[in-house]
């Protein structure tokens, strides 16, 4: 096994463990903290796939902001740490079956792909040294965000979406004189 495989397996095991802990903890604050660990594991996976910008986004947005938001949301609710919190309902069996079904069909579909069992070669770009590749990719992403032939419309629509979320959050959560 290469070092990459060892890191991947350790990370995957950590993600599965912490994801399992997220859905089984009765104390929701503990569940949120395990969720942070899960999200960090996904960031490590992004690094292993050489998606450095996505890894940074994962840490900044998911761990830095969304996990905080979830912890706030949990603390807004009553009975944060009570032991009678129900962690499963009668749909658990169906959900497990569905998960197995989705996973096995994914494996079957992707197994038909000839590259399924081969390892991806490291990312290279002609004329770009490997330690500057991350920056090069981020620059290309920036280029495509403002390129009319690429993603300029989704980029501007994203700001409308953010605006809608901003106003929606204020309308829902804002209370006068209190």
């Amino acid at each position: 096994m290469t070092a990459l495989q060892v890191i991947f397996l350790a990370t995957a095991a950590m993600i599965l463990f912490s994801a399992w802990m997220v859905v089984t903890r009765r104390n929701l604050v503990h569940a949120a903290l395990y969720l942070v660990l899960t999200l960090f594991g996904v960031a490590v996976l992004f690094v292993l796939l050489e998606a450095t910008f996505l890894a940074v986004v994962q840490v900044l947005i998911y761990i830095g902001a969304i996990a905080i938001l979830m912890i706030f949301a949990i603390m807004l609710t009553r009975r944060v740490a009570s032991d009678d919190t129900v962690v499963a309902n009668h749909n658990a069996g169906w959900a497990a079956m569905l998960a197995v079904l989705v996973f096995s069909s994914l494996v079957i579909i992707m197994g038909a792909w000839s590259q399924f069992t081969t390892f991806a070669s490291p990312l290279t770009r002609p004329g770009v040294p490997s330690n500057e590749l991350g920056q090069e990719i981020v620059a290309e992403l920036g280029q495509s965000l403002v390129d009319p032939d690429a993603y300029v419309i989704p980029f501007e629509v994203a700001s409308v979406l953010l605006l809608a979320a901003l106003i929606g959050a204020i309308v829902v959560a804002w209370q006068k004189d209190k």
Partner: protein
Amino acid sequence: MLINYWPIAILIAVSTFLAVAVVVFGHLIGPRRPSERKAAPYESGMEPIGPGTRRMPVRFYLVAVLFILFDIEVIFLFPWAVNFRNLGVFGLIEMFVFIVILLVGYVYAWKKGALEWE
């Protein structure tokens, strides 16, 4: 490549070791003479009133949501800023439109008083 991430791995290792060491050595070496006063939750020297896990005001949630939205805006700004000299005037205008649209929401939040704590 992965070798570039050594500093992060070392940071994680050192901080994990430090956190574990502080707790473990505190348990092993530190003297423990608990009394009722010491075991009581500290609340500025007062007798604690009410439960420890109180519901927080919804205002915290609003601040967190606003934080996320502007955090996402920064993520969009970042790849643009890395390359912004090459993107030219058109890129500048695109980013300007993007920020102005979000600025509408910012002004709305401001006028609504959502940014004020009192």
